[in-house]
């Protein structure tokens, strides 16, 4: 093949792409079509079922499944005809491009609302797409600052770290008033950990406990001996950790093994029973602020816990599962209310999405997280937060988050 021929191929490639772009620009707009209600109202979910965020995505997937089952139960119990939802779940991977692609795919498929994505970093990439195309998004697990501010169609049921994180510091000081020297650890290559540690450090400084040392770790670290020895040299009596489940669990284990006996406060990344097998008996006594407590005594939460225990053989549901359940519940209840006022069958897809967003933000919801509602820009307003202490069984294999009064 001659060079001339090859450059002709290159020109042809460019021309084909230009043609494709031109063709796509003049197709009919899906937003103007009537909403497809066959098989239920289409709702999309994008969760990290693969990549290293999959531990979170799996917890969330169970939450969505339980919510579906719960609504089915209620539909069967109620004789009046309730709206059915058709949930379509797509894998969002762990990176921005995959989540964006999944959002695009589901929006093209004509969903009225989206649940997801799992990670805040993915939300910064995918949410603007939904915003531009006018699709309501309910985030079940994005805690970074600035998520609802991406646009008018973006909301979340996961309370931001700014509200939750300081509570556990206050509780630690209440339990041990003699605390004077605080040390801070965080994973410096992780978006969640770096944002949360800023809040922790501010909360400490506000209490007059300026951190004596701040140690930086990496998400994929296994060995924290260096950071721990230089922190212990400052003889701290409180250690505050922002890390994900695996690295954080190992960090706690090594802290205790190297002789640290003081209080430990951890952030939302370790808010999962998946840490028990990692730090085992060394998990005992760590403090954590939670947006969900399985011990909350309301009818919805009792039903949710019962469903979870039936599905998982008696285990206690983690926060991520409860929040995913809540996200589904919020979308489903808002759709029911909207349908009662203004039958969905009469709306075009674009109108339904817009009306749903208004309905969603205006409502009150009785969820496993307690009573929640939304501010006008989509931030969750949650009545109750909890501080729990991990209590391990003597065998060090299993444990529980014991709710502190």
């Amino acid at each position, binding site marked *: 093949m001659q060079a001339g021929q090859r450059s002709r191929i290159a020109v042809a*490639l460019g021309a084909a*792409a230009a043609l494709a772009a031109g063709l796509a620009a003049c197709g009919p707009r899906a937003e103007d079509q009537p909403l497809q209600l066959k098989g239920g109202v289409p709702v999309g979910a994008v969760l990290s079922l693969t990549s290293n965020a999959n531990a979170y995505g799996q917890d969330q997937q169970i939450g969505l499944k339980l919510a579906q089952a719960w609504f089915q139960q209620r539909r069967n119990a109620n004789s009046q005809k309730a709206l059915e939802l058709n949930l379509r779940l797509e894998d969002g991977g762990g990176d921005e*491009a*995959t989540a*964006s*692609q999944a959002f*695009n795919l589901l929006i093209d498929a004509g969903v009225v609302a989206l649940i997801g994505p799992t990670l805040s970093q993915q939300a910064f990439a995918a949410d603007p797409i939904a915003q531009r195309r006018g699709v309501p998004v309910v985030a079940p697990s994005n805690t970074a600052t600035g998520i609802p501010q991406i646009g008018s169609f973006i909301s979340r049921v996961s309370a931001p770290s700014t509200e939750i994180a300081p509570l556990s510091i206050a509780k630690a000081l209440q339990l041990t008033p003699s605390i004077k020297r605080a040390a801070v650890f965080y994973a410096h290559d992780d978006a969640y950990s*770096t944002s949360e540690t800023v809040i922790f450090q501010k909360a400490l400084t506000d209490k007059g406990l300026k951190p004596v040392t701040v140690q930086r770790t990496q998400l994929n670290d296994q060995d924290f001996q260096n950071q721990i020895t230089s922190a212990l040299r400052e003889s701290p009596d409180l250690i505050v950790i922002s890390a994900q489940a695996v690295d954080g669990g190992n960090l706690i284990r090594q802290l205790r093994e190297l002789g640290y006996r003081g209080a430990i406060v951890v952030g939302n990344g370790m808010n999962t029973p998946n840490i028990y097998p990692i730090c085992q008996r060394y998990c005992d006594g760590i403090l954590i602020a939670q947006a969900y407590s399985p011990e909350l005594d309301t009818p919805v939460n009792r039903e949710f816990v019962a469903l979870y225990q039936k599905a998982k053989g008696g285990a206690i549901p983690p926060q991520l599962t409860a929040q995913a359940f809540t996200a589904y519940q919020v979308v489903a209840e808002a759709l029911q209310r909207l349908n009662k006022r203004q039958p969905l069958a009469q709306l075009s897809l674009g109108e339904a999405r817009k009306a749903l967003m208004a309905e969603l933000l205006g409502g009150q919801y009785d969820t496993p997280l307690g009573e929640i509602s939304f501010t006008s820009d989509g931030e969750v307003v949650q009545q109750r937060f909890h501080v729990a202490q991990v209590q391990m069984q003597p065998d060090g294999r299993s444990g529980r988050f014991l709710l502190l009064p």
Partner: protein
Amino acid sequence: MSDLSLLVQMGFGALLALSVYLPLRCGQLSLATPGFYVIGGYVAALLSTRWPALSGDGAGYPLTSLALELVVAAPVAAAVALVLGRPVLQLRGIYLAIATIALVEILRVLNLNLAWSGGAVGIFGIPQPFAGPGGYALATWVLLALVCWLCARLEAMRLGRAMAAIRDDELAARCMGIPSADVKLTAFVISAVIAALTGVLAAHFLNTWNARQGGFDASITTLAFVVFGGSRIWLGPVLGGLVITALPELLRPVGDLRLILFGLVILLGPILFPQGLITPERLARLQQTLRRP
């Protein structure tokens, strides 16, 4: 729309693959591509979010500002490549690969810790120069066509022939009077510029930019494009970039098995086609069969 945005991502894949291919064309295994990709992305993200003069009158991000970002990103990446290229390209084979991985890692740690790069969260809320993926598809594929044209021209140009000579036998090439150090540096710089231009478009397309975009994983992915597609002529990496980027998305209907299938394809590709899918010989044979009535 989802098809168009997949086209954009495939275009990015092909461009990055060509960026790995160019140094490889003169026998240099450089894994620095994601480093320059990230530099381009940060130039776009910083200029468009921190410099209000660029955002125009509010109705969309002006195309002239995007062009300005491209014009700024290219020399920045070229300058970094020029400064680093001289010492780094003295290394050969696996040592060069290690040095370029180190470069990517250094850039990642710098971006995580410098104040202006937004740390691990990165920079978000990057304004949009195009109303939808159609505009991005057009821009990406025009850039891809340009780079393909350049690569095709190289085969007939003095520079391209010099690169091929160095790849086959550097000592012999130097004996023939080819300034091998300069030629390798030129290839490295062009490769850096391509990656940076791709980064500029990608930052706008993704709405957000952070240090995770270019890490060791990205180095390996871009290398896989070239290994899968073939590194003998430019069509190979283009095909590799397009196919490997598109495959996980096209396999979505398969459900949970999709990444297993994707892994199988990546595994079987090099086993069945050790030289890559496209080699000059295979292309010539294909042409012969097509020409025969």
